[in-house]
């Protein structure tokens, strides 16, 4: 049977002989299994095996050679002797932080803008956050101090 398998693989059989040999092979499951193994070996030998890139091994080896040497905590020295930083590790943490902050901000805004209830107040308002325009508008109508009056109340609209 091994001779038949070898003949088929080596394309030595033609016409009726090839058909007869295949029928014999089909009847014997052990022989069929062997045939597949031989065929695979033949393909690899002939660089015709479709699922395996013949350059794969060399590419893998090339990558391994170029891979920097890690030594601690994400900081490592490359084979090219330049210091670099494993930013990906920290970018992920940073991105996660940003995401959490964004979600919190959305939740806060939703609370402020959608609540129909009065927002309770017992906090200190930042003095610098008060619009100068509001203070000046208040002064321009209510101040009795001529000096303030001459300074407040003007908002350029030009």
């Amino acid at each position, binding site marked *: 049977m091994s001779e038949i398998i070898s003949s088929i693989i080596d394309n030595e059989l033609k016409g009726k002989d090839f058909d007869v040999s295949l029928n014999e092979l089909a009847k014997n499951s052990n022989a069929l299994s062997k045939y597949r193994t031989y065929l695979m070996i033949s393909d690899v030998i002939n660089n015709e095996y479709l699922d395996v890139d013949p350059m794969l091994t060399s590419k893998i080896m090339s990558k391994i050679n170029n891979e920097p040497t890690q030594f601690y905590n994400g900081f490592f020295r490359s084979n090219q002797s330049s210091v670099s930083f494993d930013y990906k590790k920290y970018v992920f943490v940073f991105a996660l932080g940003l995401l959490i902050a964004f979600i919190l901000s959305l939740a*806060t805004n939703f609370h*402020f803008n959608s609540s129909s209830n009065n927002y309770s107040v017992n906090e200190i308002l930042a003095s610098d956050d008060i*619009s100068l325009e509001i203070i000046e*508008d208040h002064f321009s109508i209510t101040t009795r*101090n001529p*000096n303030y009056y001459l300074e407040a109340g*003007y908002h350029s609209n030009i």
Partner: protein
Amino acid sequence: MIKFLFLLFVSFSGMTASESDLWEKINRASLASQNLSYSGILNSVDENQDIHSTRMIHVNHKNEEFLKIEKIDGAPNLLLMHQTDAFLYYNNNDNILIQRNKNARLFPNIFPANVERLKENYSIFNGGAFRVANRQSTMIVLNPKDQYRFNYHLWLDNETYLPLKLMVIDNNQKTIENISFTNLEFLSNYDVSWFSPTVDPQKKYIINEENKISQSVRKFWSVEQLPQGFEEVSYNAKRYSGLNAIAHQIVYSDGLSYISVFIHPVPKNQKPQTGSTQKGSNNIHAKYKQGYQIMAVGAVPMNTLSILIDNVNLIK
């Protein structure tokens, strides 16, 4: 017994007469600030204890008031006011920007049209004799009858009743406003030729039309109960820079104290300002209600602002 009742009656009458005399002085002070012609230098002290000076000329000519006030320190800004029309001239580098305002109540003319209103909310006392701007004066103290306003001290000229000095003192005995004449001259010449700006040909004069909303705005708020003695005296609506919405300013007064309430919608991407703070002589209190920010500003106790805002109801 009869003697005791007589003494009680005499002392009571004396006190009442004294109070009414003092109120009469306030009434005369109000008239004097409008009817007399005078000029002088006014100093005001701010919260940092810096002194700012202005030169003032006021003339009542044929029952019409003409007022000119110039800044002596800093930018030489100028105010020309005829009756209730005020024209402000702001020096801005190469330009003079002119802005029109209305109904300013500037020292010494600080009293409400109806002085009687003050009696409801202030007690009056004689604070004694003082010399201010080289003139003899009497200090009149107006103490609030409740906790909604501050103390006013006025120094009235003994001869003319014109207010020479004003101090506003808060409940912690801190002076939050201090304006006084440093010199004063009463004018007998009613010439008003000075009532014009000094034109600088090197500068460009521009009239600033403020972006106030002239059309009527639906009043979508109501105030359930104002603090005792306060009433609405002014209303403005305008579009503020940085706020793509109309902001409403309602001014309330008891005749001496003023509160501005600003109401505007809060854009969805902005956090409303809430809480309390102080800026200069003013307290500020802000709250967020039903999508709107309500901010009260005024030289009154914080509690007054808080009560006022709590009583603002939004009608939707």
